[in-house]
């Protein structure tokens, strides 16, 4: 029997190398700023084109070293993941770009690679109310971004204060942040119910509030005085426009970001919803702040039929009050802006059918889309509550939106992701140019002459990026920023990332004046922020790009 085992083992040795001869790969993990080793990162070797059984993972040792010994031949993307760092990928410098796959050949050991990781940042502080530490306050880090020339805020991290009022936001990528604090709403009594706000989870059926009948047993000692807290933005303002924007760099720990919260005065909006269509039923009435905040922002009431409505507990500000039907043959709408700095009574909302908006696309003066796949999108200008959505453009260039609710909309021509062959030369709506402004849809006033004029004579930019030692720099963002006055549309910003020869080809540019930047740290999104542009103004190269032309530039990589 032992002889037989040896024979089998021998056969195995003979056969296996011919079939799968594994490749090996080794390397180490280091911080991208200091080069210091990152211990205990989990390394994933992801075989491009799979299968999943060819993926491998190992844990790096205390000095950041790692080794894969059984990789099937192929191309691999190499990732590193660890607490306190952004996920890293070999060959990637910018968090928004892709890394470089590594080739692993049968039976061979690849050259050692270094995977770099960016440390994440933290923001910490204290919240109080009336001189006492405030527990159960939600503090949020809101990432500041510019889209179409306007600041948008999105939640990047959240934390609740403890009994000593302390909080700590973490896992933050470097970037620009606004920080807000708002006390968790306590259970409150609404008519004959107790309403308890909750974090939606499977355990509570993914509800953001739980309603219980108002009985002596259901009233808890958490039940607070009715009252609404406005969000406080650091440093101590309720006006998001006046919030400080914190510049957070990799590995920052920013402490002392403290808040004082207080109840706000609240008002109501009352009035009547009426309609010219007798069958209207199932009506939603809402008030949404024009400046979006981290408050439970949109207050909504459901009405069975047209009649009185009451929106209460509103903090001062400008609101869009809107109503729409949710049932019935055709949706009816109404919306109106309202300044709330006192109780507002007697508001009249008249529900009406939406409007038909139709138009044509032309490319280089010829009606039609020139065989391309194309869509047109409408999104609400303020506030971003209802995006209307997108419609396809027909081969002859015709497109139409039916039943658009009245209001202001931004218009975008949508091409497949990689298509950079067109720029928007003109947009005419109802006889006026709306290239850099929203369209205004009026109730009952259909528009049939919405013309979108596109041009295929795009310009291009070829850049070579060199580092301090005059060597080609790979993985560097090259971005063309349009001149001031043309920065209200994000689609005018174009960028590319340099390859291993330090070259980037930026295409699809509308002819005009641009400033070109080469950056190893900032992502494309960041360059739409006017503060970022101002700070780096001296590093840019001004270029003029003409129809169908291409410009060659040599740039120095700047951090």
């Amino acid at each position: 029997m032992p002889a037989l085992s040896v024979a089998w083992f021998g056969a195995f040795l003979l056969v296996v190398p011919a079939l799968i001869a594994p490749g090996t790969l080794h390397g180490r993990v280091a911080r991208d700023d200091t080069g210091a080793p990152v211990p205990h990162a989990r390394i994933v070797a992801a075989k491009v084109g799979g299968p999943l059984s060819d993926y491998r993972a190992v844990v790096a040792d205390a000095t950041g070293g790692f080794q894969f010994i059984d990789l099937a031949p192929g191309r691999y993307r190499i990732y590193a993941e660890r607490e306190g760092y952004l996920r890293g990928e070999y060959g990637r410098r910018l968090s928004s770009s892709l890394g470089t796959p590594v080739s692993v050949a049968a039976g061979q050991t690849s050259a050692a690679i270094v995977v770099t990781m960016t440390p994440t940042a933290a923001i910490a502080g204290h919240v109080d109310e009336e001189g006492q530490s405030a527990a159960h306050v939600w503090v949020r880090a809101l990432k500041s971004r510019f889209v179409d020339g306007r600041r948008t805020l999105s939640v990047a991290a959240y934390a609740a204060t403890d009994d000593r009022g302390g909080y700590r936001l973490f896992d933050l990528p470097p970037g620009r942040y606004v920080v807000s604090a708002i006390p968790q709403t306590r259970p409150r009594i609404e008519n004959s119910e107790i309403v308890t706000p909750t974090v939606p989870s499977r355990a509570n059926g993914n509800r953001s509030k739980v309603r219980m009948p108002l009985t002596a047993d259901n009233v808890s000692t958490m039940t607070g005085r009715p009252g609404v807290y406005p969000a406080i933005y650091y440093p101590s303002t309720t006006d998001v426009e006046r919030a400080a924007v914190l510049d957070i760099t990799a590995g920052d720990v920013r402490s002392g970001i403290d808040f004082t919260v207080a109840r706000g005065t609240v008002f109501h909006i009352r009035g009547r919803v009426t309609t010219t269509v007798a069958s209207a039923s199932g009506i939603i009435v809402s008030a949404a702040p024009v400046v979006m905040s981290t408050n439970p922002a949109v207050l909504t009431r459901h009405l069975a039929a047209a009649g009185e409505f009451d929106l209460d507990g509103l903090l001062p500000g400008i609101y869009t009050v809107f109503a729409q039907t949710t049932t019935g043959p055709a949706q009816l709408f109404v919306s109106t802006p309202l300044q709330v700095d006192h109780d507002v009574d007697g508001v009249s909302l008249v529900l009406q059918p939406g409007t038909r908006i139709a138009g044509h696309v032309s490319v280089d003066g010829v009606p039609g889309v020139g065989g391309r796949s194309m869509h047109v999108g409408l999104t609400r200008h303020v506030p971003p509550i209802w995006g209307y959505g997108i419609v396809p453009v027909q081969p002859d260039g015709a497109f139409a939106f039916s039943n658009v609710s009245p209001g202001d909309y931004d218009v975008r021509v949508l091409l497949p992701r990689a298509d950079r062959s067109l720029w928007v030369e003109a947009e005419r709506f109802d006889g006026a140019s709306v290239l850099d402004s929203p369209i205004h849809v009026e109730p009952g006033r259909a528009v049939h002459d919405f013309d979108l004029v596109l041009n295929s004579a795009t310009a291009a930019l070829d850049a070579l990026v060199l580092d301090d030692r005059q060597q080609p720099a790979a993985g560097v963002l090259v971005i063309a920023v349009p001149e001031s006055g043309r920065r209200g549309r994000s689609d005018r910003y174009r960028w590319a990332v340099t390859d291993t020869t330090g070259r980037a080809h930026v295409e699809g540019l509308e002819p005009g004046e641009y400033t070109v930047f080469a950056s190893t740290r900032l992502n494309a999104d960041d360059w739409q922020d006017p503060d970022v542009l101002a700070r780096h103004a001296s590093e840019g190269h001004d270029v003029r790009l003409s129809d169908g032309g291409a410009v060659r530039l040599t740039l120095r990589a700047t951090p």
Partner: protein
Amino acid sequence: MTVWPVVLLLTFLRGPVSAGQITGVVVDADTRAPVAGARVVLTATDPAASTAMVTLTDAQGSFHFAPASPGTYRVRVGGDGYLPLADAVSIVVVTDAAMKPLRLALTRASAIAGRVLTEFGDAAPAVIVRALAGDRTVAEARTNDLGDYRLFGLAPGEYRVAAERYAGPRVEGERYVVPTPPCPDCPGEGQFMRSVSSVTAGGEFVDPYLLLGQTHPTVYYAGTLDASTAAPVIVMAGADVGGIDLRLIAVRAN
């Protein structure tokens, strides 16, 4: 014509106030200092009655309710940093009798704090830590980037402290399933699914613990995976118990 204290915890201050009104003061049981901003809840003792009144104490710890209709009422108190005083007192309100103010004493709540580390001894962020009384979760917290957590609002007693990593991604047949944790700004806790082939086609990232076949079961203080051998953490009234540190343990997934 009389006021009957039904529960003996009730103490009276001197001096009558107007008939039918319920007034009082909330103090710290230990220091006797007034507690400002405490929430005082008044409900009728009839469980079916849907009347409830809520008020906050002022800077002197005082509160009062507008005249209530005759009947039996329950008074409960909650204050930040204090244990709630539930079923503290029951009182009968009689409309034309003068009623003495209530004096309600609150006991400071306790806390348990500590640090959670990975199996390698590094800080373990975003780990869910729970204080369990029996099998019931009485407080829950999430560790920060230093691995620190703080469970607060605890009554005196014995607790087990448990730390758990939120479930990582898994593969179910041809699907790569990523559980998404609860969050105040999400529509709800759920999961995100993709086909495995769409992930591997581009060599996209897959959770390394899934590839390693490892998982982190719930670990109980002082470092056991077996709930029955957990060391109890004994908490005295108003105490701040620190140093309840836990280390995650990676085991082979089944």
